[in-house]
C-alpha cells in the first residue's frame, strides 16, 4: 500500500500552543483532527507537511460526557442538570468542532431539531470514517477534483495541475484563471441552511463568522479563514419552527463524496413559511446559498417550490471533474431542491 511520508506529529496541550506551533511553521505545518482526509492525501503526496498538529481533542468542547450542548451561557449545562427534555431548542445548539460525524449524526438533539445536519453527517463516506472524521474537519474539507485527487505517480504522468503547481494550467478548463476543484462537504450545505455560525480562534484572537461567508469561489484558497485559525465550535440558532432535510447524489449508497447535494430548511408558522434557506454543495468550488425567499408567505406550494428549484438549478455550476456528468448533476440540483422542499410539507 502507499505509505505516509515522514513527518513530525505534535499533540499540543492547548489551542494556544497549537496556534503557536502552526505560526512557527507557516508553510510546512498542518492541523489534523480525524485525519480521514489529511492522511490519505499525505500518502498521495498532495499534502507534504513536515509538522502535523493534532487539534481534534482540543476542540471537542468543555462539556464532560458530550460533545454537543445547548448554548451554555443561558442554559444549565448537560453535565449539571442531567439530560434535557427533547424538543425545540429555543436557544440553539453548539457543537465542538472535534465531535465525530457519527456523534453528530446520531445525537438525539441534532436529529430532533437539526435534521438536515443529522442526515448529512450520516451520509458522509463510510461508518468507519464517520467514527474518525470530525464535523470541524468536514467544514474545512479540502476541495476535490479528479485531476488532483490522484497519486503522485498519476499526477507526475499527467504533469500536475494548478492546485499543487501554481504555474501549471487548470486541467478541468485550461483557460480558467482559477482552480475549479469542487467543494465536497456534506455537512456544510446543511449547516448553511440551518443558519450556522462558526467560532474560530487564531493568532489574532477569537471571532465568530457566518458559515456561509467562510468559503471562496476558488479551489485553492477555498476557505476564508486567516492562516493558523482553528474552527473550535459550530453554533446553530434556535430550532423552533424549523424543519430541514438534505439530499445527496452519489454513485453508491456508501463511501462516495457528493456529486450534488441540496439542503433545505423552512420555518413554518401555522402552515405558512416564515423563513427559508436552501444551500447546495458539490456543484461549484464553494457551497452556495440559494435565494429561497419565494417560499416565504406560501404554504410550500408547487409554484414557489418550482421557483426555488429553478434558482437552485441556476446556482449550480458543476464542471467535469467529479464522477457523474455536468448535465446529470445540474439536473439533480433542480430535482433535489424540489424533492427536498416537498418533503418538508405538512402531510
Amino acid at each position, binding site marked *: *500500500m502507499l505509505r505516509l511520508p515522514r513527518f513530525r506529529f505534535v499533540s499540543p496541550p492547548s489551542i494556544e500552543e497549537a496556534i503557536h506551533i502552526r505560526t512557527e511553521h507557516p508553510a510546512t505545518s498542518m492541523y489534523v483532527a480525524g485525519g480521514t482526509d489529511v492522511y490519505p492525501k499525505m500518502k498521495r503526496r498532495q499534502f507534504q507537511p513536515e509538522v502535523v498538529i493534532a487539534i481534534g481533542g482540543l476542540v471537542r468542547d468543555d462539556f464532560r460526557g458530550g460533545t454537543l450542548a445547548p448554548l451554555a451561557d443561558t442554559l444549565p449545562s448537560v453535565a449539571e442538570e442531567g439530560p434535557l427534555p427533547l424538543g425545540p431548542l429555543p436557544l440553539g445548539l453548539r457543537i465542538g468542532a472535534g465531535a465525530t460525524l457519527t456523534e453528530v449524526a446520531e445525537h438525539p438533539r441534532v436529529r430532533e431539531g437539526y435534521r438536515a445536519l443529522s442526515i448529512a453527517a450520516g451520509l458522509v463516506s463510510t461508518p468507519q470514517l464517520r467514527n474518525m472524521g470530525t464535523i470541524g474537519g468536514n467544514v474545512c474539507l479540502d476541495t476535490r477534483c479528479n485531476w488532483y485527487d490522484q*497519486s503522485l505517480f498519476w499526477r507526475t504522468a499527467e*504533469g500536475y495541475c494548478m492546485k499543487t503547481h501554481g*504555474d501549471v494550467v487548470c486541467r478541468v478548463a485550461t483557460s480558467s484563471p482559477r482552480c475549479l476543484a469542487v467543494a465536497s462537504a456534506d455537512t456544510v450545505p446543511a449547516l448553511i441552511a440551518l443558519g450556522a455560525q462558526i467560532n474560530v480562534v487564531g493568532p489574532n484572537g477569537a471571532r465568530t463568522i457566518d458559515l456561509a461567508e467562510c468559503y471562496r469561489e476558488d479551489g485553492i484558497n477555498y476557505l476564508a479563514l486567516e492562516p493558523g485559525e482553528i474552527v473550535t465550535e459550530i453554533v446553530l440558532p434556535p430550532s423552533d419552527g424549523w424543519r430541514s432535510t438534505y439530499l445527496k447524489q452519489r454513485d453508491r449508497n456508501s463511501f462516495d463524496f457528493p456529486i450534488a447535494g441540496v439542503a433545505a430548511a423552512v420555518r413554518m408558522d401555522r402552515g405558512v413559511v416564515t423563513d427559508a434557506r436552501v444551500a447546495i454543495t458539490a456543484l461549484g468550488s464553494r457551497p452556495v446559498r440559494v435565494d429561497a425567499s419565494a417560499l416565504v408567505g406560501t404554504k410550500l406550494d408547487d409554484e414557489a417550490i418550482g421557483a426555488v428549484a429553478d434558482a437552485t438549478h441556476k446556482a449550480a455550476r458543476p464542471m467535469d471533474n467529479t*464522477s457523474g456528468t455536468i448535465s*446529470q448533476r445540474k*439536473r439533480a440540483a433542480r430535482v433535489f431542491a424540489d424533492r427536498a422542499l416537498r418533503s418538508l410539507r405538512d402531510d
Partner: protein
Amino acid sequence: MSELSILGRRLPKVNAWAHLTGSARYADDIRLPRMLYGRLLRSTRPHALIKRIDISRALAYPGVVAVVTGADMPEKMGIMPSTQDETALAVDKVRYVGEPVAGVAALDEDAAYEALSLIDVEYEDLEPIFTIEEALDRDDVKIHDTSKRANVFKEVHLSFGDVEGGFAKADHVREDWFFFEGNTHAPIESHSAVASYDADGKLTLWTSTQVPHYLHREMEKVLGLPRTRIRVIATPNGGAFGGKSDPFGHEFAAALLSMRTKRPVKITLDREEVFYAHRGRHPVKMRIKTGVKKDGEITAVEFQSYLDGGAYASYGIATTYYTGALLTVTYRVPAYKFDGVRVYTNKPPCGPKRGHGTTQPRYAFECQLDKIAMDLGLDPIEYRLRILQPANSRTVNELRVTSMGLGECLRALRDRTSWERKRSERTKGKGIGVAGSAYISGAGLPIYWNDMPHSGAEIRIDRGGGVTVMCGTSEIGQGSDNLLAAIAAEALGVYPEDVHVVSGDTSLTPVDLGSYSSRVTMMAGNATKNAGLKLREQLVTVAAEKLGIPADRVNLAYRKVYDLKDPERSMSFVEAANLAEAKYGTLVGAGSYRPPAGIGGNYKGAGVGPTPAYSYQAAVAEVTVDLETGQLTVDKITTAHDCGRALNPVNVEGQVEGSAYMGYGEIVVEEQIFRGGLHKKPSLLDYKLPTSLDTPKLETILIESVDSEGPYGAKEAGEGPLNPVIPAIANAVYDAIGVRFDETPITAEKILDALGKRDNRGITKDRIGPTGLGDGKADPKRAMRRLEASTEARERKKTQV
C-alpha cells in the same frame, strides 16, 4: 454408485475460519528473515521509446540494495506461448502508463519508494493509440512491430453451415451494434510475491497466482534458471477473478532481485498498480445479425467483434475466439459466421475476467433476442424455451453439449419471480427482464500443446486415518480446497475435516493447469475422485477379506467400512487403512484427468470453446428507474443455475451470488476508462465497485442436471452466472422505460439523455448505443497535443526549481 455421504450437503468450507478471521496466510503476510522490500518504477508515458535508464542515483540512496531493469530480463514472455510479446520489465519501449520499467529492493518500503524517483528514465514520446478505430486505421503508428495490418493483434474468421441460405430463409432479420465497456477485477487482495533464492541456488516464489504451473514455465524461461531449481507456491488468493492468471513483472522482478541480493524480496502492488496490472474485461464493439422464422426459430447468425486489447497479448487469442465460440450452445443456430479482431492500444493489457470473452457477446445476443421477441410479439421466456439447444447434441460449430438445463432454469425463474404477473403490470419506471447463458466447465485444451493430463491429484492416507490431497490447483477464494477435500472424503468415506489439502505447489503437488476457465471442479475434481477411488479399492479389498464378505458389499462412509447388507459388520476407517498399508505398503493413490477427445471440431480455432460440459444459467432482474434523476436501481436479481450437481450447495450459491453481484457492477457502475493514456479512476474510491448497500437482493435457484462427464455429476458455478445478469438488467430497463441500452454501463446520464432530460431540447431516444465503428479519424493528434502540454508544463516547472 451408492448414496452420497458428503457431497450435496450444506457443509461449511474447510478453510472458512482461516479466511473469515484473516488468519489465512496470504503472500503479503509472509515475512522472512533478512527480507527486502521491493517496488516497481512504472512508465509515466503511454507510448514512448526508452532512450536511457540511469539507476546510479537510486543505487546510492541509503537503504537501497539492488535495482534491476528490463535489460536484465530481456526474454519475451506471456501466458500464451504463441503470442509472447511482453517482457518482465519494459525493454526499449513502453506501451502504457503504469507499465513496469525497473525494480528496486531496499531495506524498507520507504527507501524503495523514495529510490524510484531517483531512477532517471529518458523517454522519447511516440504518438499513442487509444481507440479501436484508430488502432484499425493507423498504419503509421505501430505499438508492436509484429502487427501486419495497422495495430491488429489477431483476426479470426469462421463460418459454419449455410449462412447466406439461412438469412434467405428468414422471415425477419435484425442487425444491431453493441458496445461493452471495459472493467477490471478489483480483487480485495492486491497482487503480492515473495521470492527467496537460497544458498543452494534454489528459488522459491510465493505468489498470489491462479496459475502456478504456467508461471513455473515462464520463470524458467525469463530467469534462465532450470525449472528443477524453481519452486512456485500459489498462496491463498484474496480474490482473483482472472486477474492473477498471467505471469506478472513484479513476480520476475522479486525473483531476480532475490537472486542478485541473495536475500528474500517481497513486492506487493498498491491498489493503483493493480489497476495497471489489469488483464480485465476487454472493451468490445459488436455487430450481430440474426435471421428468424415467424415463430422465432433462428435461421442464421452473423457476429462480429472488435476487441480493444490494450498494450499486450495476455490471453487475447483465446479471448478473441471466446467472443464467438459460445453463442451457439444455448439456442439452436443452424448457420453461423463469426469474425473477430483484437487490436493493440496504449492502455493496460486486457485479459480474462470472470466469463472470459463470453460476457460481452452474451450481453449483445440476449439483448437482441429480447428485441426479436418484442418484434414477434413473444414473451421473452417463452421465446427462449422454444429455441433451446437440445441436451446431448452438437452445435453448428461442432461443440459437444452433454447435460443442458437452461429450459429448467427459465421455467424455475418464471415460477419463482411471478414473471407473468410482473410482466403484465405496466408501471412506468419499473421493469423486469430475463436472459440466459452458458459457460464452459474448463477449457478443452491446455495453453501449451501437450498430451498430458490437465489435472493430477495424489492422495495419501496416514496411519491415523488422516487423508492428504495434493493437487496443483490454486485456492482463490472460490472454494477449490474445500471441494477437493469433499470429493476425497466422499471417495474414501471420511469427513472433509479429516482431509488436509496441499494445493498449488510445483514441488509438492502434481500439475493442475490452474484455477481459470472454471475448470477446477470438473478437472481437479475428477482427478481427485480417480485418485480416491484407487485407494478405496485397496481399502475395500482388505475389508472384504477381514469381514469375510464379497467386495461389492463393502461400503465406505462416515469413517466406517461396513457391510451394506449388515452395517453392524464393520470396522473403522483407520483399521481398514492400517490393514491396507500392511498389505500394499504406503497408501498413495494418484489420479488424473484429461478432457475426452472429440468434444470439439478440427478446424483452425476449434481449440477454444470445447469443454467436457457446459453449465447453463438464466437470470431475471427487476429494476426501478428514477425518471427525474436517471438513477437506475436494481431491486432484485434471481438467478437459476444448472451446475450439474451441487457438490456443496452453500458454496455453489456463494459463487452464483458473487457472480450476480459482479455482473450488476459491470452494467450499472463499473468502467475502466481513460483520459488520454491515464486511467481515469485508479482507486477503490473512484472505480465504483458496488458496496453492500448497493447490492440488489439476490436469490439463487440451483438446477441439477447431473452431468455424465462431471465428477459426481458436477459442472462449473463460478463464472457462467455472471453472464445473464448483465443483459437481464438491460432488458429490464427496456421494460421499465422503453429504451434499449446497447452499450454499458447504463449511467444516469445516458438514461436522462434517452428520456430527453439531459438538456432543454427534450429530444427523446429509444436506444443508446453505437451505430457502427467510428472512422478513427476524430482528431488523431489530440492525444499527442495533450501529452505535449503536460510535458511543457513539467519542463516549465523544472526550470523554475
